[in-house]
């Protein structure tokens, strides 16, 4: 176990290092390099030279690369071009918003996806099964930002069921403890703030959950069908076990293994989907940060840090999922 973990950790470091190197050299291979990217095309030669020297771009590329690596390792990503604040501050402020959104989405996706997939498999070929398949196919074919606008249009415009954007109502004096607004409300006993934040969370989370939900349904269904076909299920049936016992002990436990892996991989879809969803609902998390760093002149220090963060989160979550696999499946531990 320890060997597997350490090997995976090394793999993680190597992957991130390679990614950083690629990003570093890509930025420097742009026409004009990062200085032009920062100043735009109309800068005078003097300002350009000044900034070049100030940022150390006049030094040899290997010196620059070494300094870049050192900065990254020590967590110094420089300052945002747009706001002038340290990149780490900008990112840590936006981080909880996205985590809250992604968690809500994955809870919806698992909570709905596993039972639906299971039911579809048990009623294979019947109406429920076919309806589920069609809905999941549409789910993976719909541009999710469009779905976001649809939901917003239906549920916030004519009938004011949900708030159209933001994380919490303006004017609500909530205390910021952790940055997770739902949790903060519970911690400070401001239950109205918690409820309000939860209310704001519903539509964005539903939008973001679409693709993971569709995929979890499909995998669960396929996996349950596979397991139902196994000899041990027939044996369990033949020896007279009651069907609820078979379902719980034999079918579900075995069928959920592939689903766990998929959940880890869906982190990727969630990270990418968050960029789109957050723009639709003006959410103010990492996704919004990416969009803002791109549209208002490219904010390279922030972008660079966000790319590394996204890759790190994706790889780490998958590592955790793989390890949890060992907990769920005793067969893995034995070997």
């Amino acid at each position, binding site marked *: 176990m320890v060997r597997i973990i350490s090997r995976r950790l090394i793999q993680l470091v190597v992957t991130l290092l390679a990614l950083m190197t690629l990003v570093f050299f890509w930025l420097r291979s*742009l026409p004009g390099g990062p200085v032009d990217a920062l100043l735009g095309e109309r800068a005078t030669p003097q300002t350009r030279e000044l900034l070049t020297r100030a940022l150390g771009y006049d030094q040899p590329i290997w010196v620059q690369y070494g300094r870049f690596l050192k900065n990254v390792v020590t967590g110094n990503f420089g300052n945002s071009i747009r706001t002038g604040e340290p990149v780490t501050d900008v990112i840590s402020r936006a981080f909880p918003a996205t985590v809250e959104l992604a968690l809500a989405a994955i809870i919806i996706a698992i909570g709905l996806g596993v039972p639906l997939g299971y039911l579809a498999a048990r009623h294979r070929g019947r109406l429920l099964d076919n309806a589920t398949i069609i809905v999941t196919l549409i789910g993976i074919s719909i541009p999710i*930002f469009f779905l976001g606008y649809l939901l917003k*249009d239906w549920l916030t415009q004519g009938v004011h069921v949900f708030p159209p954007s933001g994380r919490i109502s303006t004017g609500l004096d909530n205390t910021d403890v952790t940055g997770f607004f739902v949790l903060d409300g519970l911690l400070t006993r401001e239950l109205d703030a918690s409820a309000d934040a939860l209310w704001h969370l519903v539509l964005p989370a539903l939008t973001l959950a679409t693709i993971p939900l569709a995929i979890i349904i499909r995998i669960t269904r396929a996996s349950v069908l596979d397991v139902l076909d196994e000899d041990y299920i027939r044996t369990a049936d033949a020896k007279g076990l009651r069907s609820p016992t078979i379902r719980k002990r034999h079918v579900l436990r075995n069928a959920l293994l592939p689903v766990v*892996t998929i959940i880890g991989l869906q982190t990727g879809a969630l990270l990418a989907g968050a960029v789109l969803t957050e723009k639709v609902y003006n959410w103010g998390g990492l996704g919004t940060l990416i969009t803002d760093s791109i549209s208002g002149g490219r904010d390279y220090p922030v972008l660079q840090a966000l790319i590394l963060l*996204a890759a790190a989160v994706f790889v780490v979550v998958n590592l955790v999922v793989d390890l949890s696999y060992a907990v769920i499946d005793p067969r893995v531990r034995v070997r």
Partner: protein
Amino acid sequence: MSRPGGISTLADHKRRRIDELIARTAEPGGVSLIRDAGRRLLRNPTAIVGAVIILLFLIIAIFAPLVAPHDPVQRFPELTRDLTVDSIPGATAGHPLGSDPLGRDFASRMIYGARQTLFVGVLATLIGLLLGVLFGALAGAFGGWVDALVMRLTDVMLALPSLLLAITLVALASRSTQWTVIIAVAVVNVPIFARLLRGSMLAQRESDHVLAARALGVKRRDIVLRHMLPNSLTAVIVQATLTFAVAILDAAALSFLGLGDPDINRAEWGLMLGVDGVRYFEVRPELAYYPALAIIVVALGFTLLGESIREALDPKNRR
């Protein structure tokens, strides 16, 4: 590849799907398998629906100038007259879907949109496929350090979620054009195709027909080009069909994020949905509904066909 311990590594699922595809298509005696699969495909209503959708899409794209009532970039005075930020004219005589925000015939733009969408989807898929096949074939044919290098590179690319990788690529380019979008969407698919082809080549290396060719003294280049590559093509085609759907969805997402094609004359569904469709959603939601519906239907068509071919090739379904 999944180790015997059953612990899956990163992106292992993606790899496993690729492996399954290889296992299904690299089986010797491929001709009868393919004929068999073809027969199963024709009996499968899902495959037929997918094929019909794709065919219709192709016909509209090819014959757009004949089908469309107007030029997609022409601005009509009678449409621009009633055009304000808060009201965009709907259907009028001669303009069945009304106007777009610049007074152009929306129906014509939708029809020509099939063409541009096909262009973006096909090119993004093809470039990704060619680069992926090239790298995969190199890795599979040479093995050793070439293989190791290519595989580590694909690992790095798979460490970023695909849309994020595309966003990164476009964002890092100094300004976006139609080509940055196409290339970004294409590059995302390179590691998938590379892994697919490499696995398929490795599976064939020890197979009887390759051994026989080698025993006959056929040159390595010819073995790779004549014997190994053609046998890997089925898997590549299945993947390409599925990739097309993802490519047009990714292109739409890039447009929505302001990273799309800046050409205001271009009629492409993703662009129409991601820029004007969203901007004028409260004024005239039809500007979003039509391109969105078109994208959903076409993506669905390619997914249905791709999945059906994959299923038909599954030896488990052989009867």
